[in-house]
Structures are given as structure tokens and as C-alpha cells.
């Protein structure tokens, strides 16, 4: 990885980007971390034209950008829309894209963007400030009547003002320092005003050809549930300045094929029937490389794959019990037995390549003997069946099988064995129909240990995961009565999302990381990548900052 090898011709006015870049450069050099978001330097000139076949495990469900967090949705939205600002996938620095420059007021409650005036939507209409304002009014406020949700990435949004056709200002009710990064995410993909008038149904499967963006590709056709065809826009000429390709996409067409069976994805790739496959399982990596295909495993730069211990549950309210569970978890064994080197052991709550990362390895100790002693002292006595009990009640917890996460069932099973052998704790695994599952994971008395992760290349990501108003994975906000259990945690998280000063935000994120581990609220397991398999003919394929495929610079050499 060459850091910051593509320098900006036009520095943005906001210091945030530069500070972010230098920080990442420091952590990257110090920790030897690899973000690894693109294939090696392409050999030879790009080949023009051709079709690329891309295999995904699931069909997309919606092209409404705020719902692009679901990977199959994001993989499409990323290629049919542009964003105001480009976040360099390697440096995490912000670069001009649809916005040529931007200013932010001191308390980060007003953001003004100057727009390019040569950008058109794929239906020929011009992109102007009014169109951009309409995008963020919807993404920032949502419209429940149309089933359209607020974007998770945008906080405290109030309103927009169109200053002139190329200038737009956004106003916030409280500091929103994460907004600049939010405008660069796929959740903020820019769509035409006409498309934005639709209901959630109008963004659904089968409606792709009616979704109008400014991106390098458009949806040409769809077979619901099995195939989406993207065609290149021949007049595309507004790629981010640092992009190696400044004109239209090299490819003529991309065919997204839904291939639910992992074996078919791997076989399709290795037999040359497809060019790229997403979600290569750790167990299949060898088969892919042995057949001459390459692996690309970009990190998702957010909260690591791990367990949230729901401390408002009666038993987990005891800090000693939580500490015991942390001490009794052999994280190294999880990584060594179930995964490959593409899944590094977690050393903090967030990944090494995430903004604001701080090495907390010293807080993540494996000491099952001490863990067992803590439980013993807390009054949990070991019975003849190998499990601990107190007042006739067994020390038992339930963890969810997180279907989107790699090998979640194997991970939870292995930890369940570790906890039984080392601590005498029973860990049951919840596998259920979708309705039962959704109810159970929102109840700290049904699922006490919550398995999840979240990727987003902004400091806000930690708040997204743990804040009561967002993903609330710790259930610090009790969904039953909206009460907050640990107000200090909420305060620390709010600081991350609403401190205008960048360095102070980094400090706030580090405080949260330390606090979550000091309180044993979280057991981070590993840094979760997106693993793509690339056929030998594929060149120039990139992943954006959280691992969504970007095809603008990709070509196939036959």
C-alpha cells in the first residue's frame, strides 16, 4: 500500500480531511496495518469495452441510498450514484467530487458546498444545488409516510438553503462533525429529484431502470432476484480528481448474478464462468488461490466483529461476571481455527484501519483461571454437570447467530465450548425464524450476548453501534421503557458525534473504546474484511472505504 500516493491538486478548505489522513498514516505506519482496498498496480493499458460478471450471494432489496448498508444494495448504489465528496479509500482523506469545495462553520452546524456545473443525471437533466438539497432533505429527515428512512450516517440534520444554482448550505440543530464523511458514503448517493419523489416501493427490486443517478453506470435491466445488468454511461466525465480513470468506465457492462450457493460462487470463479465473486468463505480461500484467482480483502474500518454484553440484564449487571466472560474467551483460538490472515485479531473495539483507533491489546487478556475465580467469588458455584449455579439458577446466556457475519455459528459454537470448559458458563445459540429472532435480539433477557459488527469509515461509527438511539447493540436504552442504563456511556458517545474539533473527536472515540473495554461491555473478536475473489483477467478493481465494489476503473483483459 502506498500511502497518500495520490495527492490532491486542490486541497479542501476543511482541516478535517488532512488531519484524518495524517492520523491514518501514523497508525498505518506504526501498526503495519494494511487497508488493501485495490488490486496490485495494473499491468498494461486498460482494455475498453467488454462485460464483467460479478457474483453476489444475495439479491438486492432496494436502491434507496440510506438502505445501502445492506451489501447487495450498496454494491449497486456505489456504482450508479456519485457523492458530494470522495473519501480516498486508502488515505481516508476527503477529496472533491461533485462538490469542488466546501466550508464548515466553527461549531460544525453549517456546511456549504460549491458544486460542479457540468454534471448531468442519466436522464439528461442537470444536477444543481436544488437537486442536491432535495437529496439531503430526504436522507436527513426521512419520510415515514413513504416508508423512506433517515440515513444512519446523518445526525442532527435541520434544513437546507439553496444559495445559488451551484451553492448549497446545510443546517444542523447541533454540531454534526461527521456530516462531511456522511456525504461521501453510499448512503448519500445523489439521485435525481424525480426519483426522490418515489415511495420505498419505487426503489424496490425490479425498479432499477427507473432509478436516475449521476454515476458511471446505470441499471439497464433486472431479473428480480437473480440478475441486474449495469451499462456504462458514455458521457460520464466527473470522476473524483484522484481517480486513475477520468472519463467513462472502461467496461461496457457489468452483470450482477445472484448465486446463493457458496460452492457455485467459488466454482463459477475458478472455472472462469464469472470474473469476480463476493463473500469467499475463509474455508474456500485456498481453493480460489490454488486455481489462479486472487483474493482482495478490504477491511471494513468500523466496529470489529465481536460480542456486546448486555449489562442491563440482571446477571450481566455484575461487572465481575462480564470480566470473567472476557477473560475466558480465547480470541486467538477463534481466529486461528476458523479464519485466515485476512481476519486479524481485534486489538480494540474498532479496527486498526478505522479512524480514531487506539491499541487496547493490554485490556484484552485471556486468563481463564482468573475468570473462573471471579465467578467463584461472585457466588457462582461449579456443579457436577460442569455448569455454575447460584441460588439454584444456572449461569446461562444466549447469543444470536448473526447470519450476515462470516461463520457466526462456528464462532459462537467455539466460544460456547470455551466458556463451558474454562468457566462453567452455558452459552446457547439463537437460530430462529426472522420474526422470533428480531424480537429476541431486542430483549436483554432473551439475548444477553449480541454478536455483530458495523463498517463505516468515520469516527461516528462507534456511536452508530452503541448509542441508544442508533443500533443500541448493548441495549443501554431499554426498548421497553426507553430508559438509559449507563448515562456516562451515552455522554461519551454523544461527544464523538457532536464535538466540532477533529482532535477532540478522536480523543472522544478513544475514551469510548477504553471505557467499553474497562467496563467489559464488549468482547471484540476480529477485524472483519469483505473477501472478494478476482479472476486472473480482472484489473483495476477497487473497493470503496468500507469494501463495496467500485467498477469505474475496472477492465477485463481477455
Amino acid at each position, binding site marked *: 500500500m502506498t500511502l497518500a500516493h495520490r495527492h490532491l491538486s486542490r486541497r479542501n478548505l476543511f482541516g478535517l480531511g488532512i488531519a484524518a489522513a495524517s492520523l491514518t498514516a501514523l497508525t498505518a505506519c506504526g501498526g503495519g496495518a494494511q487497508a488493501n482496498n485495490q488490486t496490485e498496480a495494473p499491468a498494461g493499458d486498460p482494455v475498453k469495452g467488454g462485460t464483467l460478471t460479478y457474483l453476489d450471494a444475495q439479491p438486492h*432489496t432496494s436502491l434507496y441510498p440510506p438502505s445501502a448498508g445492506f451489501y447487495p444494495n450498496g454494491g449497486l448504489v456505489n456504482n450508479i450514484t456519485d457523492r458530494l465528496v470522495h473519501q480516498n479509500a486508502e488515505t481516508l482523506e476527503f477529496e472533491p467530487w461533485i462538490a469542488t469545495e466546501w466550508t464548515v462553520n466553527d461549531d460544525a452546524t453549517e456546511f456549504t458546498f460549491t458544486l460542479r456545473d457540468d454534471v448531468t443525471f442519466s436522464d439528461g437533466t442537470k444536477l444543481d444545488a436544488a437537486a442536491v438539497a432535495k437529496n439531503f432533505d430526504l436522507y436527513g429527515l426521512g419520510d415515514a*409516510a413513504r*416508508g423512506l428512512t433517515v440515513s444512519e450516517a446523518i445526525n442532527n440534520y435541520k434544513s437546507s438553503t439553496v444559495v445559488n444554482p451551484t451553492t448549497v448550505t446545510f443546517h444542523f440543530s447541533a454540531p454534526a462533525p461527521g456530516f462531511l464523511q456522511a456525504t461521501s458514503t453510499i448512503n448519500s448517493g445523489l439521485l435525481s429529484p424525480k426519483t426522490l419523489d418515489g415511495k420505498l416501493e419505487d426503489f424496490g427490486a425490479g*425498479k432499477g431502470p427507473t432509478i436516475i443517478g449521476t454515476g458511471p453506470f446505470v441499471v439497464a435491466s433486472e431479473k428480480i432476484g437473480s440478475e441486474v445488468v449495469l451499462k456504462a454511461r458514455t458521457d460520464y466525465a466527473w470522476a473524483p480528481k484522484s481517480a486513475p480513470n477520468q472519463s467513462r468506465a472502461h467496461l461496457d457492462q457489468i452483470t450482477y448474478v445472484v448465486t446463493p*450457493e457458496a460452492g457455485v460462487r467459488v466454482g463459477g470463479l475458478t472455472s472462469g464462468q464469472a470474473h469476480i465473486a463476493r463473500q469467499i468463505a475463509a474455508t474456500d480461500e485456498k481453493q480460489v488461490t490454488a486455481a489462479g484467482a486472487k483474493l482482495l480483502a478490504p477491511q471494513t474500518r468500523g466496529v470489529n466483529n465481536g460480542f456486546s454484553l448486555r449489562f442491563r440484564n440482571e446477571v450481566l449487571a455484575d461487572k465481575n461476571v462480564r470480566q470473567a466472560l472476557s477473560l475466558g474467551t480465547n480470541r486467538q483460538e477463534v481466529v486461528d481455527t476458523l479464519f485466515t490472515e485476512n481476519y486479524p485479531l481485534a486489538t480494540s473495539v474498532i479496527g486498526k484501519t478505522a479512524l480514531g483507533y487506539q491499541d487496547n491489546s493490554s485490556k484484552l487478556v485471556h486468563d481463564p483461571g482468573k475468570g473462573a475465580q471471579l465467578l467463584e467469588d461472585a457466588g457462582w458455584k461449579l456443579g457436577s454437570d460442569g455448569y455454575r449455579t447460584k441460588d439454584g439458577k444456572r449461569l446461562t446466556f444466549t447469543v444470536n447467530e448473526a447470519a450476515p457475519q462470516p461463520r457466526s455459528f462456528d464462532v459462537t459454537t467455539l466460544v460456547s465450548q470455551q466458556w463451558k470448559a474454562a468457566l462453567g458458563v452455558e452459552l446457547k445459540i439463537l437460530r430462529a425464524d426472522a420474526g422470533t429472532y428480531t*424480537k429476541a435480539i*431486542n430483549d436483554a433477557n432473551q439475548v444477553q450476548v449480541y454478536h455483530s459488527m*458495523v463498517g463505516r469509515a468515520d469516527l461516528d461509527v462507534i456511536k452508530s453501534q452503541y448509542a441508544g438511539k442508533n443500533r443500541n447493540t448493548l441495549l443501554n436504552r431499554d426498548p421497553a421503557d426507553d430508559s438509559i442504563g449507563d448515562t456516562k456511556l451515552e455522554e461519551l458517545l454523544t461527544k464523538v458525534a457532536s464535538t466540532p474539533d477533529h482532535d477532540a473527536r478522536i480523543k472522544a472515540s478513544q475514551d469510548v473504546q477504553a471505557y467499553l473495554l474497562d467496563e467489559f461491555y464488549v468482547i471484540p473478536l476480529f477485524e472483519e474484511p469483505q473477501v472478494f475473489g478476482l479472476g486472473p483477467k480482472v484489473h483495476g478493481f477497487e473497493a470503496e472505504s468500507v469494501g463495496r465494489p467500485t467498477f469505474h476503473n475496472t477492465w477485463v483483459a481477455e
Partner: protein
Amino acid sequence: MTPRALATRLGQSLLVIVLAFTGAFLMLQALPGDAVLIKFENPELGLTPAQIAEIREAYGADTPIWTSFWHTLSGFVVGDFGYSIQNGTAVRDLLAEVLPSTALLGVLGFAAAVVLACVVAFTAMGVRNPWLRNTLASLPSVLVSVPVFWLAMVLIQVFSFRLGLVRVIGGGPVESLVLPVLTLAVPISAPLAQILVRSIEDVQRQPFIAVVRAKGASRWWVLTRNIVRNALVPTLTIAGVLLGELVAGAIVTETVFGRAGLGRLTEQAVANQDVAVLQAVVVLTAVIFVVVNLAVDLVAPLVDPRLKKEVRAAA
């Protein structure tokens, strides 16, 4: 069948469909949670409780069960099946998109199954070598226990990935049907062949066969002219029942091959508790089931005139 008998039969069919609709509706309502909950209370969307409440109201997720029953029923009567909550597409559009593909797969799969069953059964019956005959006759019992999923994976691995004879990804319309049709046909052909073999054996033991033989008819003549016609009725009846098998087979086949179709749609809808889609799929399956069985009942007397008489006698 007399017009009156036919009318009764049609009335029964309609009743079955209405019962299937009601049963499916009640069961889907009784499931824990609902599709709105699953989609929007998913922590990954990070919505606040107030936002979720607004959406629940907009979707009418908490309307009383009878209101929503009449609403759904009146929609179905005029062909409006509502919207999929998972991807926001009209269920009618989803069905229109997948039906041709599944119908084609089903018809070809079934035809292939019939051919396969006949080949196995007739060869088994026509062969004199007792060892070979036994082997062929017991083949269906083996095939009936082959898991569709495993069969599909083996076919793909061998014929597509190893030998490269057909592509499973990006193949033409015919190419992409070969392996799925085979996958679907094998498990369905097995019970068909079993019944056919059994029926042929039964008919062979009947006295009239001995008479035909005694008159000097060849083995092949007896098999094709006398035995098959008589053995066909039980086979036809089981064929109607095997339709259910066909739908189940389509779910696995379409998932493994990544084909769009009714099976895939059902699998996705079950996974996401997409009630509107499931309701439509259940009713649609009931309709197909009823129609096919009705057709079998109408065709059977043409194959076996004795059935015609019985109907008359009863009427």
C-alpha cells in the same frame, strides 16, 4: 363426467382454495413478529423508536386482524396481492416475473421425469436377465432418497466446473436449463417409476394378459398395448400428487442454480417473513394443485373407460 358432477367438483375446488387462503392468512398472522418489525427494527438501520412507530402506522402494521383479512381477501379477488415488504415490489409483479421461468422449469422437469420413469420401468420390465431386471427395478428406491441439494451440487461440479460442458453462470436460455431440469427430474421420476413398475407387475399377473399371450402376442405388444394403458391410471393419480414435490424441488433447485423463480421467491419470503408474498404463493400453489388434480380426474376416464362407467353409475 356429467355437467352436474363437474359443477360439484368445481365447487369443491373453489372451497379448497378459499380454505387455503384463510388457513394461510391465520397461520401467517399467528407467527411471532411481522415483516415490518423484521425490516425496520433491524438494528442495522439504526432507527429510533419514534421513527419505527411512524413507519408501523404508515404500513398499517397494527390494524385489527379481521380488517386486514377483508382487505387482503378483497384485494385477491380483484388480483391485487399487495406489496412485498422486503423489497417493496408489487407481489403481482414479482409473480409475473418468476412464473414463466418456474413454469418452464416445472413442465420440462416433469416431462423429463416421465420419460426417465418410463425408460426405467419399461426397461426393467422388458429385460429378461433377472439380475439386471432387479437392479433396474430397485433403481427408483435409490433415486427417491437422493437429496435434491446434493444432486444439484454433484451435477454442477461434474458437468459444469470439471468437464465444462454447460455453463451455470451466464449460459444461454437452453444451456441454463439442462442441469436444473435434470436435478428436478430425477427425484420426481423415482416415485413415478416405482408406481409404474408396481402397476405393470400387477397388471401382468391379471388373467387377461395370459389370454393375450396365449393368442401369440409378442412381449413388446403386450407391454405397450395391454399393460401400459392399464398401469397408467395409478401413475397419473400419483403424478397429480407429485406436483407438491415439484414445488419443493423448485425451491432447492432454483436456490442452488441461482435461478429466479417461484421457489426462490418462496425461500426468500419465508426467510424474511414476507407475509404478502407468502399469502400469494400459498394461494397460487393451491390453485395449481386444484387445477392439476381436476385435470387428472377429467383425463383418467379417457385413459380407462371403466372409470367413466362408475361415475355414471354414481350419478
